[in-house]
């Protein structure tokens, strides 16, 4: 069983391959950060007294930046359904949320001892949780990111649950930091000076960062991976500045430098994500417009075709009616004119043959010479059809699952026509799931052998199911449930499958949706059948 997520090639920062320009830009940012570190080291312990008033501005900037980043990542998760992205989004939201109590409890900013009834340890406890928590979430993302994507139902519910859990967690943390009393670790020895115990925090966080950087350096695949690498590096530099260069002294130049570089790195990442998202949106809009144009073109071609078919059939039909009328009138005269009447009947016969020829030529459009038939692998056929429709599937937010049993025989047939059938059935299934919001949109395509040795291919959706009113007319011409449908698709599908000696039928699927199945004779039987025919 293979699972094809509806997202394979790049449409998102988490799936897009980084280009050379991306890599160079990321490297440039890293160099600037390192250079800034080197420049700041000599002045690190200069104390900037009175700079407390800048802390709320810094905290708001970080909170907004991290919240937007989290929102962007959650929106990517809602489409791609990757758990790794969920974890990363939670990490960013956690970082954003902890900044709020951190700033509020900071001594000497909003109040001499901090708001919320903070004690000496409150701010440091919150800061420690953030310092260690964020790299931990990123590390989890890095470890999860290459796992296969399970079909997650209701991403929206998952996202809101996560958001609620993070906010609840941060509230609990704040309460603990304020009212924890003796339980709290003694990180600070004064409002500005850290205690020896604090060293454990940056060291632990640095270990997570280094681990994350190491794994990302090896398994870096996407634009998001690349920029997370930069974020972790910036985070590491910030830790280094805050904990070691500034000697733990709050509001020193080194302390502020760490803050500012961290903010700069976060902003760059946010800008890159926004830029990617906007570019991808433009590309998506263009692709949709292009697809729309193609559809309109196809539709008008079909309309022109059907108008021409209608004219071709109507012409002899009309002339038959008129000839029959004329014939009756010749016979009804007081002196029946038999030669005129028989001429009229003769014309009716030739008109009938002419109408028949029109029908034959239409039929031949949907049928191909069996001489060109070749062995076709059904598993390959399914993979190709899934590939051809993956853009539509992604756009419809449908997860596609394919399953074929191992030793499937090849069938003799027309590869292109069979492809057409599968693509048509897949497109129908995607359309049927358009209005589904309360359950997973799942398209299941499977192939197996039945007891008689025939190959059965099933296309099952979790959509609306078959309309009972259409029962029996599903495969007839001009039967359609789509506002702009021609009602020819299933008719053509069935005629192709029947031309291959097979059958196509549909039934409702439990608990939801419809399943279309077609049976094809396996190649050996097929050759026998055509040989005897």
């Amino acid at each position, binding site marked *: 069983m293979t699972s094809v997520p509806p997202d394979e090639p790049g449409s998102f920062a988490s799936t897009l391959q980084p280009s050379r320009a991306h890599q160079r830009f990321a490297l440039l940012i890293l160099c600037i950060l390192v250079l800034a570190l080197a420049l700041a080291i000599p002045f690190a312990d200069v104390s900037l007294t009175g700079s407390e008033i800048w802390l709320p501005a810094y905290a708001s900037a970080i909170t907004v930046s991290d919240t937007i980043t989290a929102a962007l990542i959650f929106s990517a998760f809602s489409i791609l359904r990757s758990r790794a992205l969920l974890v990363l989004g939670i990490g960013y939201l956690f970082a954003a949320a902890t900044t709020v109590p951190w700033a509020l409890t900071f001594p000497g900013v909003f109040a001499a001892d901090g708001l919320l009834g903070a004690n000496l340890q409150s701010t440091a406890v919150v800061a420690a949780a953030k310092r260690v928590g964020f790299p931990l979430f990123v590390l989890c993302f890095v470890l999860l990111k290459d796992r296969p994507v399970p079909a997650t139902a209701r991403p929206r519910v998952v996202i809101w649950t996560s958001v609620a859990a993070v906010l609840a967690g941060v509230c609990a943390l704040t309460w603990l930091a304020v009212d924890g009393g003796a339980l709290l670790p003694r990180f600070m020895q004064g409002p500005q000076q850290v205690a020896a115990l604090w060293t454990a925090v940056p060291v632990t966080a640095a270990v997570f960062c280094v681990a994350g950087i190491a794994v990302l350096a090896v398994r870096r695949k996407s634009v998001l991976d690349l920029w997370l690498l930069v974020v972790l590096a910036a985070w590491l530099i910030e830790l280094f500045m805050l904990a070691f260069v500034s000697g733990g002294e709050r509001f020193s130049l080194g302390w502020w430098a760490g803050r500012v570089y961290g903010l700069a790195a976060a902003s760059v990442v946010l800008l890159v994500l926004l830029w990617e998202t906007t570019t991808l949106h433009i590309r998506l809009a263009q692709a949709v417009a292009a697809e729309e144009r193609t559809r309109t073109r196809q539709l008008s071609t079909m309309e022109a075709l059907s*108008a021409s078919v*209608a*004219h071709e059939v*109507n*012409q*002899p*039909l*009309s*002339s*038959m*009616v*008129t*000839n029959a*009328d*004329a*014939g009756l*009138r*010749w016979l009804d*005269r007081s002196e029946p*004119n038999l030669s*005129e009447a028989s*001429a*009229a009947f003769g*014309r009716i016969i*030739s*008109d009938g043959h*002419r109408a028949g020829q029109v029908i034959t030529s239409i039929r031949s459009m949907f049928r191909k010479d069996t001489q060109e038939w070749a062995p076709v692998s059904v598993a390959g056929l399914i993979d190709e059809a899934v590939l051809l429709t993956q853009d539509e599937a992604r756009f419809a937010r449908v997860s596609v699952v394919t399953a074929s049993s191992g030793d499937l025989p090849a069938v003799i047939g027309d590869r292109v026509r069979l492809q057409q059938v599968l693509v048509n059935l897949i497109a129908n299934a995607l359309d049927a799931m358009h209005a589904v919001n309360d359950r997973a949109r799942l398209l299941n395509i499977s192939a197996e052998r039945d007891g008689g040795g025939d190959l059965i291919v099933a296309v099952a959706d979790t959509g609306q199911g078959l309309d009972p009113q259409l029962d029996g007319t599903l495969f007839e011409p001009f039967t359609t449930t789509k506002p702009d449908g021609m009602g020819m698709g299933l008719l053509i599908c069935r005629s192709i499958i029947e031309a291959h000696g097979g059958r196509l039928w549909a039934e409702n699927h439990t608990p939801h949706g419809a399943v279309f199945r077609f049976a094809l004779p396996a190649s050996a039987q097929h050759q026998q059948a055509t040989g005897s025919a």
Partner: protein
Amino acid sequence: MIPGPAIVYVVDDDASVRDSLSSLLRSVGLQVMAFARPADFVDADRPDLPGCLVLDVRLPGQSGLEFQRSLADWNVAMPIVFITGHGDIPMSVSAMKAGAIEFLTKPFRDQDLLDAVHKGIAGDAKRREETAVLADDQARYDRLTPREQEIMAQIVAGQLNKQIAADLAIAEVTVKAHRAQVMRKMKARSLPDLVRIADRLGDLRRKA
């Protein structure tokens, strides 16, 4: 059903439709001339009989509706019955506005076509009759002397003999003589009859 002989012209590019229409129309005693292209109809030597044109909307080279407009431009006042395989409402509306008698969608009921054709022929016969009367009037009018034409204009304008005589500075008795000549030459039975004839001629002059 038709007083006197009449002819129906069928223009359709489809030979089998053309043959079936001809047969149907001949079966009720109509003369038929069938053409594949509008140009053939225009070039044909058509008999001088009341007639009707049965036209397919979809024609080679020129659509039936364009052809209808060309006929109007050439002053060919033949009634037209349209038949079409793909009639839509805007198309039939514009055809009817341009003077078509009927717009039939294939396949049509034979009686509908025959009714429309008979209506067309009757209309054409009436139009031809009116044209003939008018031509007679014109010929008679042309035979009047300039002085008689002058006096006729005054009579129909409601002038009395005395006024005409004063106006033209001639004797009233001379006016009376001219007036009698005008009534005789124009075959007018009464003064109102003469006024009607003058009206018809006036219409003709305005149209020209």
